[in-house]
């Protein structure tokens, strides 16, 4: 009777540990791959054009800001779309 109880308790303990470890694995994965950025230094890649150095106290920064216009152009995809009828 005592032995049976001991074996049953061991099996239960092992199951609990397995569930706990599986849950921990998921938590660990969430820790390793954070969803939000924390702190990063922004440095331009050496292959990119260097940051403009002509800014000084008299530079109109708002005007410079207005010249920044990120775009996804249709012309970027033109050659690829021309290939589609050939597929």
């Amino acid at each position, binding site marked *: 009777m005592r032995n049976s109880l001991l074996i049953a308790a061991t099996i239960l303990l092992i199951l609990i540990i397995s569930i706990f470890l599986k849950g921990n694995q998921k938590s660990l994965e969430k820790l390793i791959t954070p969803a939000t950025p924390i702190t*990063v230094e*922004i440095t331009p890649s050496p292959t990119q054009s260097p940051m403009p150095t002509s800014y000084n106290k008299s530079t109109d920064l708002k005007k410079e800001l207005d010249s*920044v216009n990120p775009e996804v152009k249709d012309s*970027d995809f033109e050659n690829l779309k021309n*290939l589609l009828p050939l597929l």
Partner: protein
Amino acid sequence: MCFKIILFFVFLTLLNPLTAFARVTPNDIYQAKREQFKTDLEKIFNPEKKQNIQKADKMLSEINQSVCDRFDMDINKLSAILEEEKFRQQVTKTVVAYGQGNTPLDTAAYYLNYAAEANAFQKVQDYTPQIANGKNLAGGVNASISNLKSNLQTVKGKILRAKTEIKKAISYYEK
């Protein structure tokens, strides 16, 4: 005897697949997609179509890189503008972690950092067309184009948000 039984069950725990620590990484997913693509290519018997789909696959990657490089230039310019504003306001350090900074410059730096990370993440994305055993060439490429456009628009949105925050910071300090 009991102790041996307990040891046996503990040993079973180590073999239990529930506690396996192997993870599927993004690289595993990428490799699986490329393998599937190569397998599907072998099923295309028309050599011209085979060449064209390979060309399309390469072009998807090139378009992603060229647009991201253009975004990089915008981000670099925004960064330079922000640095100039910080210099003018004699701000020597910026807290980037969201929630800890409480100035317009901190907020601008956070969103600019967020945009830069999003662009870096976008550069390494894969757009291998899913060509379904060589039977859905145009459909697979179209789906990849839509996916790529959508993701690039998302990055564009983040850059524009950073631009807005920098503009707010400049307006705040240079009234």
